[in-house]
């Protein structure tokens, strides 16, 4: 758990006790600076992600064309 000297200078000891007794460790703002390990992506997952990325890029071109066509 966080040591007592590792607190914001304006935080009182009662505040510290309150935080430690009422928050889950993962809820502490300071802990969130540490990234969660990356996951392994399967071939199927990569395929779906790339397909949808290409879909989105293609559709954005369609939208831009639609805007251009309506303005002309």
């Amino acid at each position, binding site marked *: 758990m966080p040591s007592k000297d590792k607190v914001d200078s304006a935080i009182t000891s009662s*505040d510290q006790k309150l935080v430690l007794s*009422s928050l889950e460790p993962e809820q502490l*703002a300071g802990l*969130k600076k540490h*990234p*969660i390990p990356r996951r392994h992506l399967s071939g199927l997952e990569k395929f779906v992600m790339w397909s949808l990325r290409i879909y989105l890029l293609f559709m954005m071109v369609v939208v831009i064309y639609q805007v251009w066509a309506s303005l002309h």
Partner: protein
Amino acid sequence: MNLGPLSRITPQAVPQEDVVITHEDVDRAHDRVRVSSARAQRGAFSKFRLLWLLVGPGILVMLGENDGPSMISYAATGARFGIGFFIPFVILTFCMAIVVQEMTMRLGSATHRGHAELIFDRFGPFWGWFSMIDLGIGNFLTLITEFIAIRAGLGFFGVPPWAAVGSALVFLSLAVIMHRYWTWERTLLAIAVFNLVFVPVALLTHPNWHSVGSALVTWKPLPGGLTQDTLIIVLADIGATVTPWMLFFQQSATVDKGLTRKDIHLGRIDTVVGAALAATAAVATIIATAPLFAHHMTAENFQGAEFAQALQPLIGRFGAALFAIGIVEAGMVASVTISISSAYAFGEVARRPHSLNLPVAQGKAFYSVLFLCAATAGAIVLIPGLPLVYVILLVNVVAVLAMPPALVFLFMLANDREVMGDLVSPRWANILATGVVVFLTLAGLLFGISVIAPNVFAFLGGK
């Protein structure tokens, strides 16, 4: 202490002795003490108090998504197509929103991490930046449309554009200046409830309840068949209920509020109540403008306040003013929630403090992003000659197109046993979520076909 599933995969990486307790933690701890106290007590009042303490992100995200462009899309829907097809359709889209948003609430409660943070950590920066670019562009375009709505709504009362944009920025400042998530959430909830102002407007039009009931039960076909114009309205109505910023906002707000695994059941109620309130306002807006359809009034070129002006002969000055106020409220609330969703995402990705519990001195980057996004969007709206209505409809269409990739990240995270533990999505939720992804992708593809090969629609029986 109750350890979540993340503790299994992070202990080596996190030297907890280095963790600094902050004001953000203290404020959140105070909120959690009240939740624990309400949970420990028995009786109906305590249960209601617990629900009251835990609702917020779900209602705010749903009413926030009933934003300026959404309400204008619903108004355009009622005015151009009446109620037969679109009332049940809009209710269906809110059911989709519940399926999607429940996953974000569950993710936030289980991991205590924001959506952007999880995507970057679990999928890496390559996919993370794609996701951020989608969110950034979508949020910025949507913010512009919120200011368009505010400008149009206040324009009904004779407020000049610069004053309308200025007042929206002042409202945004007041909304976040409290530096306390709880106060911010309650204040915004109180204002967001004014979204229901469209209900009295609908009642003032003296709707034919038999027709409304019949529309709900029978789901009439699309008037005029499937055309490119109707498809844009269909997509705009879908984009009015499910958009990428909602995923990022509700998950981050759930984390900022401090919800835990124990709160998930009430988090679901929060999401469903929010969807029910937002669907009521959306259906009311369609009913309110349906008389314009019934009177064969041309509504193609109406903007936010022009719907109010068009309705004035039918519902009087008071009703029209209520409609304009509703458009302003929708834009104001959404400008706050969308700016905050951008600021949350920035903070999560840049590993900078990101919480509405932060004092300004500790959250300079968070608050700067929030105000910079809003101020830039507001300034763009003041450019003369902007095609406002078209921008509004297209923003909702773009939101629908950006949803499938965003939903796949959400789907994979909600099924990631390493971060979710036993809170991974059940089979029924996965089936529903897959259905939503397929539906949105097909809707987008249909739009693409309508642009590239419009004759296909004539072949299918449209115009």
